């Protein structure tokens, strides 16, 4: 489980990781970099550790930097030949081939228009190339990916997205007790929600955004007050 949480600042050498690395392999996540044989932080925030050997800095950030394997929400911006340009909040627009959808063929193109919201996986990401998305898994099945119709879309910090995506998130469970809903959370700090009525949907969005405003400590309170958001 992610523990510790000592604050590290950029440039700080992290001896505890170097200690671990002497005996076994260590995975350095975002916010950490290796300088020769030392490990140095490059971002400011609490240092996290997950057993057995993963370390990263859980810094506050709003700008998404694509990483391979991430699940993101994107807005289709335009069609460009065989590709769609998708805005995922990264420095560059991402691209998705029209063949990267379930049962798409050269003849049978997916019906995607500028402005559509898609939930996709980052297939390729590197600082030097444009990120590439897919909407199918390795078996060519859609799974949970694809276009998100209706609903309500909003942006938040990357941290809030990550808080919602931890296993057994108490926030989502608390909302479930209030009303049936579906949600898509991208690690790029974008959230899409949908409930039975428009009123409920907007209340849901407000409740989730309130978590960002309130600071995470007041999660329980916000969840309890969800009813108020619904009435408001």
């Amino acid at each position, binding site marked *: 489980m992610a523990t510790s949480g000592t*604050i590290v600042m*950029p440039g700080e050498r992290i001896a505890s990781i170097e200690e671990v690395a002497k005996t076994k392999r260590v995975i350095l996540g975002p916010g950490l970099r290796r300088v020769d044989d030392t490990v140095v932080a490059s971002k*400011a925030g609490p240092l996290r550790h997950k057993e057995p050997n993963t370390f990263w800095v*859980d810094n506050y950030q709003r700008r998404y930097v694509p990483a391979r394997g991430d699940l993101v929400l994107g807005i289709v911006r335009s069609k460009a030949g065989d590709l769609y340009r998708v805005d995922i909040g990264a420095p560059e627009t991402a691209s998705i081939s029209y063949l990267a959808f379930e049962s798409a063929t050269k003849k049978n193109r997916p019906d995607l228009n500028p402005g559509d919201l898609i939930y996709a996986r980052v297939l390729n990401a590197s*600082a030097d190339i444009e990120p590439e998305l897919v909407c199918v898994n390795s078996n060519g099945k859609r799974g949970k990916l694809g276009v998100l119709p209706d609903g309500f879309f909003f942006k938040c910090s990357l941290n809030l997205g990550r808080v919602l995506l931890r296993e*057994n998130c108490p926030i989502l469970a608390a909302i479930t007790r209030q009303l049936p809903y579906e949600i898509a959370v991208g690690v790029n700090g974008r959230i899409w929600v949908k409930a039975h009525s428009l009123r409920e949907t907007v209340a849901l969005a407000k409740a989730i955004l309130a978590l960002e405003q309130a600071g995470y400590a007041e999660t329980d309170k916000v969840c309890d007050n969800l009813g108020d958001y619904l009435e408001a």
Partner: protein
Amino acid sequence: MNLPVKVAVAKDQLRRMHCEFNPLSRCDGSVMYSQGASVVISAVLGPVEVKSQNLSIDGSYLECNYRPKAGLPQVKERLREAAIKDILDLTVLSEAYPRSKMSIQVQELEDRGSMDACAVNSACLAMLIGGLPLKCSFAAVHCIIDEQGDYVLDPDHSETAHQRASFTFAFDSMEGNLLLIQTKGAFKIEQFNDIECLCRSASQEIFKFYRSQIAKFHGASQDIKANHESMETI
């Protein structure tokens, strides 16, 4: 004017620092920072798309804008801008995001002395909260020699009227290397050395302030993790 009343601070102390994170909603990170009665807002964007004329394949393009309280930036503001950019060039890990741009905007709200140092420090806090990769953090300290020949650290506007010389030093957080020196007026080399030492030790206080502010900001978010873990063990 409802400026805070000038509190008598010892001449060898920094004025009170205060900061608030993310007062602006549309940028990637912003900070309102005050040092005594001098107040600035800094905002960062990055990494973002870059114009092709500024594009570099081995590092991101750095941009810095400084806006005075009123009117358009003049020579003085341009100089300040250049100073901040020079420091950023040395400390930002720009090779992490090639073909992109990192942009920082500093808006002066109230200039009551030590503006150069104030702007540099707010820029550092904005970079920290915006999650931009840095080789190290940085802090700047302003100091003057007044008419009696005394050193005044981080002077207020009112104290600078009859200064003999003024200095601004910027240091990095790790090795304490000098990143910037700005001097004005007449002084002896011993005085310069003394003031450098004085500023260097004061910069440690600023780094401590950075850390405590980041800890405070993340402190709230750590509670939930603690709660969450206790829930899981049940």
